[in-house]
């Protein structure tokens, strides 16, 4: 039951992405092309998502805990550091190059569109690469401290 409801939540998200136009790179890139073929649609996606999520979260956080879990799992850090800013900027560069972001690409894998498949495979490679580099850097730092 828990997993089925989780599946339904994913479905609502995937349907939202499909209807919104977020998974259409031409539309996404046009939103950012103020100097050219501007399409303001994506502001409506973001605006509507926030208009639902902000009051929705207020209601949810009035509860002591989630329905199926012991606690709300929110990011532990509030740090605004170089890693956050440079990482986000890097993501923006990639988004501007390809026109897909992760949340928009994942659902439309099921369309079998070759561009989505190529983008997602590349993104997963980038994800593993970055996690490997981060883990290695941490290990080397630990070794250096141990010595």
């Amino acid at each position: 039951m828990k997993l089925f409801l989780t599946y339904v939540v994913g479905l609502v998200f995937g349907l939202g992405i499909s209807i919104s136009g977020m998974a259409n790179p031409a539309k996404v890139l046009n939103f950012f092309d103020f100097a050219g073929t501007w399409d303001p649609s994506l502001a409506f996606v973001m605006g509507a998502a926030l208009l639902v999520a902000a009051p929705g979260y207020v209601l949810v956080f009035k509860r002591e805990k989630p329905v199926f879990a012991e606690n709300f799992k929110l990011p532990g850090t509030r740090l605004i550091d170089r890693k956050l800013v440079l990482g986000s900027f890097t993501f923006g560069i990639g988004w501007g190059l390809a026109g897909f972001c992760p949340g928009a690409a994942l659902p439309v894998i099921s369309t079998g569109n070759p561009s989505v498949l190529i983008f997602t495979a590349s993104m997963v490679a980038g994800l593993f690469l970055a996690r490997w580099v981060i883990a290695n850097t941490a290990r080397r730092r630990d070794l250096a401290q141990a010595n």
Partner: protein
Amino acid sequence: MIETEFTPLASTLGGALIGLASVLLMWLRGNVFGATGILAGFLQPSSSTDWSWRAALLAGMLTGPLVYLSLTGGFPEIQVPVSTLSMIVGGLIVGVGVTYGSGCTSGHGVCGMARFSPRSIVATLTFMAGTALMVFLTRHVIGL
């Protein structure tokens, strides 16, 4: 470049569903609906129970376009105005960026912004600036 039609109604409806899914996931399981975090935890799970809900959520996400197909008779439109090389390089850069930035449009842009997290507001403004800069460079400076 491809001209695209302004779709305020569809985009508002789609955005509202994305927001609703984020609220439902927090209400039911207490998790942030961030595609980056969900995918990373699915690919490198910390335990089998932590893996199964991510798999169920991803399966639901993949079903979204199929429901769209059954409702409208077609898959959501995917027009690609860039080269395959841009897709490959862009994908790689996105994967690295979201890992260091700890999130993407769904995690920071919707979930984090919705609870007014200063960290997510900074991240969102930063990646939007990066995207706009890249689109300007590729379309109006380099002419890619």
